[in-house]
């Protein structure tokens, strides 16, 4: 065992996926063990031990859903909030929204009960002036009251703290003095950005997760320690970058999309290496299809996400759009006679009809089984022996074919086409409708089901092709290994561009860059260099929404060299891209400064994943089976995907099987194995 080995660990709901990489030897291994819900450390360690002694590992990078699940299932800690007099209900009042556009039912329960939200006398104005100084004794008293009421973590959120954090700072000091643990945080420390609800929600959800994520990481730390592990242990953040466990304990809210983000990072890296810098990743699960856009190798970040109604997290996250179409999505004909697939889902339990676990309403997976696209004799995951094709067929006959007056095969194909249409729509939303030319993009399906539908994605959206990674099932674990280290910061500035003091802005940018850099350096992973990137949120005076304006500057010799002209030009370019008209003559404003420090990891040579020289087309051939395409049965060749050699070219119709995924190659498409072992699917006759 060499001390250069790094392991990526992605703990999902059902399985824990691992990717082991020995940097010195250029050797990798994958692993899959059952997750142990509630005590994830067990599966985590079992998986690690599969690669040999844990003590020999240099570092472990972890993608986790512990934070996500605690949020979705409302299983965070009991926490307290101290806020400005008159504002205890900001969290519960939200932005005065409602759950659905149509329908007036439903209520909202915030994560902090009203009796755990206490007010103190203090007030800062919008320009940063302190109108009323906070009294530390009042804060300490409030903190003690919350402790007595059982709070395990504390959030301090004062109005206008983004403009001047002084009152929050004083309050935090006073509260920390009486608080028995380190779970105390102020809103200006988490998100010094204007908008009190979003800032309070983010700060409160951070506190809500702190004890949960802290105890989870503590458990893992102890388990690793007991195995003699003395290397580095890191966590993937929602922004697709890696952070130290110390940062994760302080900012657990940044782990909300940890697992999916790692998958997107890996898909982006694989595609870039394979010559596809522009891709759309698609993760088809049991209930949903998650889509993310990668342009010129860069993932798109969203400033904010809503975990559930009223649970808003504002911190940069890889932008992942989700639609309710997954393998378990139920197909039915509605009262208006229209075929619908989803959003209702049979999930993985009871799951599709063909699982034989009690569901009788047909799902997308059932349609795929009936059409011969999924091998009924070799179900993915290994938990079931075989799938019940006849039961699936009967369900489709009853619920779709009969009401629509179609035969059962046409009905099954219709279900797949409607689901394809929804997936294509999700892809269109993030690509064409943002002005990207689909001909320049390839789809990268990962997870279990996406590769079944690549043909439709290519044809319906007009994509250049699809790239199926060699190990779709461990994409997220691989992402943990190759993700950069990243730290994001935001600061509201509220400056008019016309009267800009560029020198003052420069000093501010340099200081922000320095602070972000320090966090990345402290993480202690090997990096080849650290980049700092700046972005401004800007608008015309009078607008409330902003456009993101990337600044073409970096810190050199202690200055960014920023000027008003550079900003103006960058703003106009960004505005023109977003909207068709500029509004010359109107003033412009800088709302926020966003700073990110990115520690670039050493290059990971994906060629390590490529099939060996012993692979051959003949060895990979598994025979053939009838598969339904475009209204008729076709005899499709079936291959063991992992046994295919580099350069293999397989015309459709064909099915490529591997333990964790099935790739369907439509009759008018061709699959090729590239030098990294990826399967690239394109229209027959067109180059990859």
């Amino acid at each position, binding site marked *: 065992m060499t001390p250069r080995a790094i392991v990526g660990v992605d703990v999902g709901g059902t399985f824990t996926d691992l990717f082991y990489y020995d940097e010195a030897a250029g050797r990798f291994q994958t692993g899959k063990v059952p997750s142990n819900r509630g005590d994830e450390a067990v599966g985590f360690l079992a998986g690690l031990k599969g690669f040999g002694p844990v003590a020999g590992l240099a570092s472990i990078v972890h993608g986790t859903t512990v934070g996500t699940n605690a949020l979705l299932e409302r299983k965070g800690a009991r926490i307290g909030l101290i806020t400005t007099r008159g504002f205890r209900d900001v969290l519960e009042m939200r932005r*005065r929204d*409602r759950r659905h556009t149509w329908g007036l039912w439903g209520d909202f329960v915030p994560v902090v009960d009203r009796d755990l939200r206490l007010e103190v006398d203090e007030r800062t104005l919008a320009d940063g002036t302190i109108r009323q100084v906070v009294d530390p004794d009042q804060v300490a008293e409030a903190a003690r009251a919350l402790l007595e009421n059982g709070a395990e973590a504390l959030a301090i959120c004062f109005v206008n703290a983004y403009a001047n954090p002084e009152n929050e700072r004083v309050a935090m000091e006073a509260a920390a003095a009486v608080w028995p643990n380190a779970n105390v945080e102020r809103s200006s420390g988490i998100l010094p950005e204007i908008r009190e609800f979003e800032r309070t929600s983010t700060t409160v959800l951070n506190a809500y997760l702190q004890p949960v994520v802290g105890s989870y990481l503590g458990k893992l730390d102890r388990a690793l320690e007991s195995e003699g592990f003395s290397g580095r242990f890191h966590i993937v953040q929602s922004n697709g970058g890696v952070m130290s466990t110390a940062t994760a304990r302080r900012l657990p809210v940044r782990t909300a999309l940890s697992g999916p983000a790692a998958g997107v990072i890996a898909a982006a890296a694989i595609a870039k290496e394979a010559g596809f810098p522009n891709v759309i990743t698609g993760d088809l699960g049991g209930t949903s299809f998650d889509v993310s856009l990668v342009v010129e190798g860069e993932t798109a970040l969203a400033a904010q996400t809503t975990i559930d109604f009223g649970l808003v997290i504002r911190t940069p996250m890889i932008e992942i759009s989700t639609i309710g179409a997954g393998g378990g999505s139920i197909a039915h004909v509605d009262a208006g006679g229209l075929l619908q697939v989803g959003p209702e889902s049979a999930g993985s339990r009871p799951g599709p009809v063909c699982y034989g676990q009690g569901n009788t309403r047909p799902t997308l997976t059932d349609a795929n089984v009936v059409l011969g696209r999924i091998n009924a004799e070799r179900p993915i995951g290994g938990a079931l022996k075989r799938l019940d094709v006849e039961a699936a067929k009967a369900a489709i006959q009853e619920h779709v074919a009969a009401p629509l007056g179609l035969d059962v095969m046409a009905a099954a194909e219709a279900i797949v086409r409607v689901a394809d249409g929804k997936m294509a729509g999700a892809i269109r939303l993030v690509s064409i409708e943002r002005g990207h030319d689909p001909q320049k993009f390839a789809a990268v399906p990962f997870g279990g089901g996406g590769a079944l539908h690549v043909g439709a994605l290519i044809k319906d959206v007009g994509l250049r092709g699809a790239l199926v990674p060699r190990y779709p099932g461990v994409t997220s674990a691989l992402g943990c290994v190759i993700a950069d280290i990243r730290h994001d910061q935001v600061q509201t500035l509220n400056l008019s561009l016309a009267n800009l003091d560029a020198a003052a802005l420069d000093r501010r940018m340099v200081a922000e860059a320095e602070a972000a850099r320090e966090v990345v350096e402290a993480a202690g992973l090997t990096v080849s260099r650290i980049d700092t990137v700046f972005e401004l949120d800007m608008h015309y005076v009078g607008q409330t929404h902003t456009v993101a304006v990337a600044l073409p500057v970096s810190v050199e010799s202690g200055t960014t060299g920023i000027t008003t002209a550079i900003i103006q030009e960058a703003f106009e370019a960004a505005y023109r891209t977003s909207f068709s008209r500029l509004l010359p003559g109107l003033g412009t404003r800088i709302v926020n400064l966003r700073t990110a420090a990115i520690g670039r990891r050493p290059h990971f040579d994906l060629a390590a994943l490529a099939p060996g020289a012993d692979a051959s087309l003949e060895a990979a051939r598994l025979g053939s089976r009838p598969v339904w395409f475009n209204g008729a049965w076709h005899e499709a060749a079936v291959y063991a995907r992992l046994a295919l050699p580099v350069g293999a070219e397989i015309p459709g119709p064909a099915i490529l099987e591997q333990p964790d995924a099935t790739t369907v190659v439509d009759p008018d498409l061709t699959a090729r194995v590239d030098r990294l072992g990826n399967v690239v699917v394109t229209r027959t006759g067109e180059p990859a």
Partner: protein
Amino acid sequence: MTPIDPVTLAVLKGRLEQIADEMDATLYRSAFNPIIAEARDACHGLYHATTGDTLVQGTKGLPIFVGAMAFAVKAVIAKVGREGGLHPGDTFLFNDPYSGGTHLNDFRLVRPVFRDGTLFCWLASVGHWLDIGGNVPGGYNPKATESFQEGVRFPPVKLFSAGHLNQDIVDILAANTRVPTSNWGDLNGQLNALDLGERRFSALLDEYGDATVDAAFAAFSDRAEALMRAAIRALPDGRYSFSDVLDNDGITDEPLTIALDLTIDGDRLVLDFSRSSAPAQGPINISHATTVAACYVALKHVFTEVPANAGCLRPITFTVPETTLLGAGAPKPMAGYTETILRLIGVVLGALAEADPERATAAPFGTINALSLAGHRADGSRWVMFSFFGGGLGGNPETDGLSHANNPISTATIPPVEILEAAYPVVFTQWSLRPDSAGAGAHRGGLGAVYEIETLTDADVFLLGERGKVAPFGVKGGQSAALNRFAWQTPEGWASPPMVSKVTDVRIRAGERVRLETPGGGGFGHPAERDRDALKRDLRLGYVTPEAAARDYDLTTGDEQ
């Protein structure tokens, strides 16, 4: 007619909704005034070439416009029918509430889509502009007795003729507002949305063919009609009557009645408003078109599965006499139309609750509370802070009502305190839920809110609100919510308006405050049936005070323990 297969139909439905959604999003992001950008007081869609009927609407647009926009397109079709001269590249602009508008602030842009030289359908955009002149900044003049006191009125005019901007119109617009930049920004935002919609829709037509898309439009309408008929059929036949009142019209302090006789007959529905009050002197009148649109909103909130297009209105007959305030004509003032449609929606919900209590929802808070504070900064520049405020939704068979929600006619979010304080010389001294504001019930209403605002300069105060005299009702034994309250500071203490929730000609001095307390929603089911643990939680969290618990829920002090 080209036959269309069910699969293509399902795919096209998603594609078309996406186009309208994207138009909405484009305007929200590029609009200047927060009523569009934050409160989403806007809507986009595709409309039938000859009838103007709604073909497709965005899923996020302001609900009230979903029903109203068809009438706007019909107004343009009528004009073109009279005058001719429709060309590719034309774009009509108007805000006339009497021919397909709602109130003067809502500016509509309507653009034809031509295919091979023939009109195929219309694209339209509507957004609420901040100010269009009139006596009161923001347009909500509670004392208006004629449209002319509310702002400038545009009948349908060509903003663009065959692609050429008519600068005269732009100049007239700019000369008739207190905020020309804001309106110019919003107009450009709406044009951005139309440009984008046109590009996307043309691409879709190229891809699927005009005939297929046309067939899909027809199929969507038929399907919406079928779903609506199925929903009506599920209700018990009969005649159900319900009425509610508006406080006053801002001129004379007398209540005005909105009365509905709802008849369910098989798969048909008759909505008869004949027993409603006569047109009012003050600005709470609405047009026939707006009445139909508001009924549509109420029905859609109950029958959420029925899609948003004209087909769903086919099984419904409306009786809205011109002799009522729901069928008013020019030049009756209409700025406060929101108050009237909110009451009207409540009345429809109330009548449906009589028909089917299991699908009922108690009254939402029912007032927009259009509050305008205006003054001058130290440098002489004018400031106008204009916003709408939230309240509680009604209890329902499933849950308590939602606290601090937006109104059923809207999906508007409220601007954050910090954005308002950064933009205007105001300081909020309170922004909180209002205890005891919800109607008691087995499922109580959601809570209303308390907003208290200090102004840092002298300021004129205008408010157009309602529910000051008759509170949002409960259903199935549930109780009414609290009344709307408004007050302002004077050297002598707090003062309240004579017209309860309608205020004008009030000036406060720097450092003084105004205070708005909004209603919650009505309760659902008898309060005695409320789960006792839920009630104890209400007490612990201060949603309900001990006094109110004793009064409304019959909870004695001993029970609290």
